[in-house]
């Protein structure tokens, strides 16, 4: 029923809100029509009644005048006729004999002209007058005709009667109008109320969405903070570990090099111990990476070239059952990152992907320019802005959300005992965070995994210099080159000194900054200051280096550290021109580093010539 009404309204294009006014208008129209109808009906009924009344009068006259007509008694006929004068509306009353000749008549008024003859049956109205003729019969004998003319109420008089009706109609119409308007106002108010309710619901919905968003952000923040705390803890342990490993590895190397142990068994054991210690060093390196305490050497890199360059390595790592697909964006921005570490990270991801796709699959590496907006950045503790994206996707088993939440944590692994260290993804995470980037895991069980690495876009235009791998160690007579080793840990200092001496440098040593400065003052030939970053006694390695370079501007500086402190690392990056070798260093790595420094000094010195 309601639907039918609605459809009817739609058909006429009437809005539901306009229904009442429309209904009121229709009602008023109906009222007016009804009023007009009533007036017309009344008018008709009045004429009918009047005609009947006059006819009745005529018939009465006709029946009373019969004898007078029959016996030619005009006097009597006149009396009968005049009797009708009591009706003030009677204008003419006349009697005609059987031959149609006037017999008796009464007339009143200026326009009452008695016709000389009359025809039976005439009955009509003319203006405000009504004419009736009736046959005079006695029994069935026709004796003559009665003719009557009466005034009917003038139209003005008649319409006076309808004034009341018109008033009623007008009042009803007014009531309709008032009702219609009231209804309209009510409908409007309802509409507003409804809208307000909707707005309120919308606001509530927004609020709820914001709450959810905030909860998400808080949870993300908590995760970030948790990682931070873990990073600090891990970093601290790793640092101490590094120093210990430095001693172990150093001594083992010395034992090997100088053949301090006799017998094959002993040699094998030393080699085995050295391997174990080096593996331990790799582990601590990864821990430091996660803790973002590893020294990085960020340079402008082209990630497309880097990924392309890795394809051979990836093929070898992943095996035949996994196809590799690279989707490289053209016009990719440059990013500043440590190329070695980035390769390391991608390799880690590839290894994880391989493990997730034991029965083969596809690894996709995509690069793209992208933008992290304010909201996303805030929830993930990253700076909003332009980023270079490297997305590594596999078609493997995927991860449930609780695994995703912990995937970046160190030592968290889903692999069997002994198969994974649990440090792969944490290295990736730490490296990316240290590079001011952002890492995100997207995965669902059975749907594969995508890990997205965001590296900040490098704005300053510069040549992309691929970090060239250091060449291996070289020995020779470098006795003219004086190196000052500053290290508070005596074991480490002895180890470093022994390596450098073995390399042929003239080595001086100092346990802290104060002594180091005195040594430097005493020997102006010192060309390289090799110092630990963390030093006791007031001055840090950085401060020592600054002071030393103030006194000897040509002095080269090489830092070593278990982890990079802010003293030399600004937000995880080395200042330009500062060299660093992370602990634990090996004979080869230290040799290469020092060698490179002196070569560079040489080329700089020769350059301007």
């Amino acid at each position, binding site marked *: 029923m309601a639907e039918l009404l609605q459809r009817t309204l739609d058909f006429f294009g009437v809005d539901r809100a306009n229904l009442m006014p429309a209904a009121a208008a229709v009602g008023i129209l109906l009222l007016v029509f009804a009023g007009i109808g009533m007036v017309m009906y009344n008018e008709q009924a009045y004429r009918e009644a009047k005609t009947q009344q006059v006819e009745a009068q005529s018939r009465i006259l006709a*029946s*009373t005048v*019969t*004898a*007078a007509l*029959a*016996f*030619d*008694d*005009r006097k*009597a006929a006149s009396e009968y006729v005049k009797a009708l004068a009591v009706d003030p509306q009677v204008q003419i009353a006349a009697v005609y004999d059987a031959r149609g*000749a006037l017999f008796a008549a009464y007339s009143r008024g200026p326009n009452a002209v008695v016709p000389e003859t009359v025809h039976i049956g005439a009955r009509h109205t003319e203006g405000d007058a009504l004419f009736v003729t009736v046959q005079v019969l*006695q*029994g*069935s*004998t026709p004796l003559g005709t009665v003719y009557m003319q009466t005034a009917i109420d003038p139209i003005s008089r008649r319409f006076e009667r309808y004034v009341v009706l018109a008033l009623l109609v007008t009042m009803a119409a007014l009531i309709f109008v008032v009702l219609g308007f009231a209804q309209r106002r009510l409908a409007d108010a309802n509409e507003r109320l409804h809208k307000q309710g909707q707005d309120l619901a919308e606001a509530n919905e927004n609020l709820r969405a914001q709450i959810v968003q905030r909860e998400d952000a808080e949870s993300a923040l908590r995760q970030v903070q948790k990682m931070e705390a873990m990073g600090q803890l891990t970093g601290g342990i790793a640092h101490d570990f590094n120093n210990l490993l430095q001693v172990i590895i150093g001594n083992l190397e010395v034992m090997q090099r100088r053949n301090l142990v006799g017998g094959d068994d002993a040699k094998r054991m030393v080699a085995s111990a050295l391997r174990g210690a080096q593996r331990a060093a790799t582990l601590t390196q990864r821990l430091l990476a996660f803790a973002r305490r590893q020294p990085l050497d960020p340079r402008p890199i082209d990630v497309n070239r880097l990924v392309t360059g890795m394809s051979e390595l990836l093929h070898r790592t992943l095996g035949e059952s996994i196809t590799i697909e690279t989707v490289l964006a053209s016009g990719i921005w440059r990013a500043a990152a440590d190329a070695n570490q980035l390769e390391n990270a991608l390799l880690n991801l590839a290894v994880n992907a391989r493990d997730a796709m034991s029965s083969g699959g596809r690894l996709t590496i995509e690069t793209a320019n992208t933008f992290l907006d304010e909201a996303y950045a805030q929830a993930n503790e990253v700076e909003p802005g332009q980023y270079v994206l490297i997305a590594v996707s596999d078609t493997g088993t995927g991860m449930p959300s609780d695994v995703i939440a912990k995937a970046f944590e160190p030592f968290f692994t889903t692999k069997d005992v002994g198969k994974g260290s649990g440090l792969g993804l944490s290295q990736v995470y730490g490296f990316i965070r240290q590079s001011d980037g952002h890492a995100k895991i997207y995965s669902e069980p059975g749907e594969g995994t995508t890990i997205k690495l965001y590296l900040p876009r490098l704005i300053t235009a510069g040549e992309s210099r691929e970090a060239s791998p250091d060449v291996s160690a070289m020995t020779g007579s470098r006795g003219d080159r004086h190196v000052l080793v500053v290290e508070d840990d005596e074991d480490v200092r002895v180890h470093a000194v022994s390596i450098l001496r073995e390399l042929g440098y003239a080595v001086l040593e100092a346990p802290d900054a104060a002594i180091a400065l005195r040594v430097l003052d005493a020997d102006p030939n010192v060309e390289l200051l090799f110092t630990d970053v963390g030093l006791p006694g007031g001055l840090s390695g950085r401060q020592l280096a600054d002071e030393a370079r103030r006194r000897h501007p040509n002095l080269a500086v090489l830092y070593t550290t278990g982890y990079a402190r802010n003293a030399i690392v600004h937000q995880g990056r080395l200042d330009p021109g500062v060299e660093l070798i992370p602990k634990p260093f090996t004979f080869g790595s230290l040799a290469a580093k020092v060698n490179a420094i002196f070569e560079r000094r040489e080329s700089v010195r020769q350059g301007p010539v």
Partner: protein
Amino acid sequence: MAREWRFARAVRGLVFGLRACISMLACTGVFAQGSSVEYAVKATYLYKFAPFVEWPAGTFDSPNDPFMLCVVGHDPVAVLVDQAVQGQQVAGHVIDVLHLAQVRRDARCHILYVATHGPAAAAALDSVRGLPVLTVTDAAPDPRARGIVNFIVQDNRVRFEIDPREASENHLVISSKLLNLAVEPSPKP
């Protein structure tokens, strides 16, 4: 009876002229007393009484029965009656005029015009007393010899007296309309 018809035919020419005269003069309603117009009017009135009188049921055996207008005696009116009723009907019945020398009780008249005066008139009236017959006399001086309707001339107009008591004795109902036109009868002794 054949003699009466012949007599009637003898006066037909005269009556024809009178009819035209009545037609013209009737509108004036005025004529000289004892004139032929007066007689013609009276002759016409005879059958005109019929619609105003109600005879008892069973007066007519069938709708085709004629309305009997009997005339007894001779006077100027009686001569004109045949002409006056020509072409007239009373409630669908043809009017037959019957001229009688004397009236018998079984005459079966509806209207009896007594065209005589004196004892003969009284005898005629007595013969139909109690029968449904409307008796009409013309200016009878003797109240006992007056019919139910008695013509008189008043102000040079033909008027009539009606005796309702006699009418009811003859089982007739006379319309009040007719009674209203009647002149108040002079009281009977």
